[in-house]
């Protein structure tokens, strides 16, 4: 335990809870503590990139020199409603059924 107490903490249980909520992922109490330990180990390793000298280095978002692609605004065939609804866990008439929001 002494070793782990000395180790730098990057993320607290509360932060893990908060980020998991932002990502809409429920965690059990046990998972919160296991994930917090694991995420701290992983973030400690990720700290390595701080050493890289990146002043004046532009980010690579994409390896291709892409240009935006436009296509004509033409009607294309689309899925019939029954096909589109086929994978929906809950549907009603021709609609996806969502949980109540307001």
């Amino acid at each position, binding site marked *: 335990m002494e070793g782990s107490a000395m180790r730098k903490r990057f993320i607290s249980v509360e932060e893990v809870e908060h980020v*998991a909520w932002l990502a809409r992922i429920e965690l059990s109490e046990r998972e919160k503590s296991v994930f917090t330990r694991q995420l701290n180990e992983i973030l400690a390793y990720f700290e390595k990139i701080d050493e890289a000298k990146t002043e004046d280095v532009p980010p*690579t978002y994409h390896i291709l020199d892409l240009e935006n692609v436009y296509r004509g605004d033409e009607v294309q065939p689309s899925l019939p409603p029954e096909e589109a609804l086929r994978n929906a866990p809950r549907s009603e008439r021709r609609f996806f059924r969502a949980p109540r929001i307001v």
Partner: protein
Amino acid sequence: MPRPWELTARETAERVKSGKATAEECVLSVLERMREVEDRVHAFVTPLEEEALETARNIDRRASRGESLGRLAGVAVAVKDNICTRGVRTTCSSRMLEDFIPPYDATVVERLRAEDAVVVGKTNMDEFAMGSSTETSHFGPTRNPWDSSAVPGGSSGGSGAAVAAGEAVLALGSDTGGSVRCPASYCSAVGLKPTYGVVSRYGLIAYANSLEQISPLARDVYDCALLLGVIAAHDPRDTTSLKAPSKDYTGSLSEGVEGLRVGVPREFFGEGTDEEVGKCVWEAVHRLEGLGASHGEVSLPSLEYALPAYYLIAMSEASSNLARYDGLRYGCRVGRDGGDWSAVYSRDRRVGFGDEVRRRIILGTYALSAGYYNRYYLKALRVRTLIRRDFERAFKDFDVLVGPTMPTPPFKTGEKIQDPLALYMCDVLTVPANLTGGPAISVPGGFTEGGLPIGVQIMAPPLREDLTLRVGHFLELNAPCRDRRPPLR
């Protein structure tokens, strides 16, 4: 006389097209092999026996009418279960998509069908392609055909194992950080990650868009080149698809390696690289030298940052991509809809996603969140530029770079699954090619004393797949124990 399942794709298609064999007997032989060994391998999430036989019979009917057949006539192909197949469930080995039946085929699947290939099943994988061992599958792990106590690699472990065990002649996988090269290395098969943009990603269920490519797996380099030629084409439905024309990748295989300059990156033989693996790869380099290539050592100093940069980018993209799983249009919806809707989604996403997927979504969300974006995500993208520059520099002096695919031989099932970071470390030599976008192949290099496969990785500049295939082909022709077959025990 080899049984049909033992034939290469090239041999199978030649026989079927010339009328020496029927597609049905070729496919049936593979299906019988599958029946014989699948319980020891578990390569498939969804085998497709009946559909495959039906397709094969249709091909034979067309042949009997005198129609000409495609380049993969009667060839049994296994397709990773993150590639959409019309009317056949496509699960990503996740509970979230356990019942998902795509209403369309991925472009690569359309292209396979157009060449008269026969899809024999959907293969097991790490859930949402997040892993290097095929242990995180909701449907249980795949076994290595060379040693059933070892992992087959991942995330395309089912595809690698299926090809190695003879349960398919060819397979499609996807490679985001080594997910095709790793199982190729661990199962003694050939796997090539093409240059980003060469193969359409339309119908590939997204994990990390800027890194991943659908990639071919085969038992030899010729077949790998043949399959690449079938799937590589511009696709207007994928806006990152290159406008380069399709080409045949098999033509230049026999051009040899004379005069080729082979670079050996020092960083690929660091302290994490197993001694037997390092020795085997150096032997491969010397074999190339014996065939007329020259070699020199090279340094890629930014490589030590590749793994954290890769994981930060992949996790960030994953957190955004996997936000779509809300259990409305498809996916997993458990329990009643009452109460707060965010709580409903959170619960469904907890049930639908396994531990590793949730870990990566949470870390990715963290890396993209206010206050951490610059420190993690943007920093990783800048490091990506440094790594690209290192490779560009190396490719000024060398035609190809050769090193191990994996730093160690296949490890035991269960050995690393409790330690996420230890599993990430396995990808240290494969992620650079995803960050730079260039092609990289893994070909069999030999075996450890204990009989486990070792893969040799060959990397080339963007769009030089031909070089990786040529070098791979010559290594294969001159490899020790090239007729060794997996014991399946």
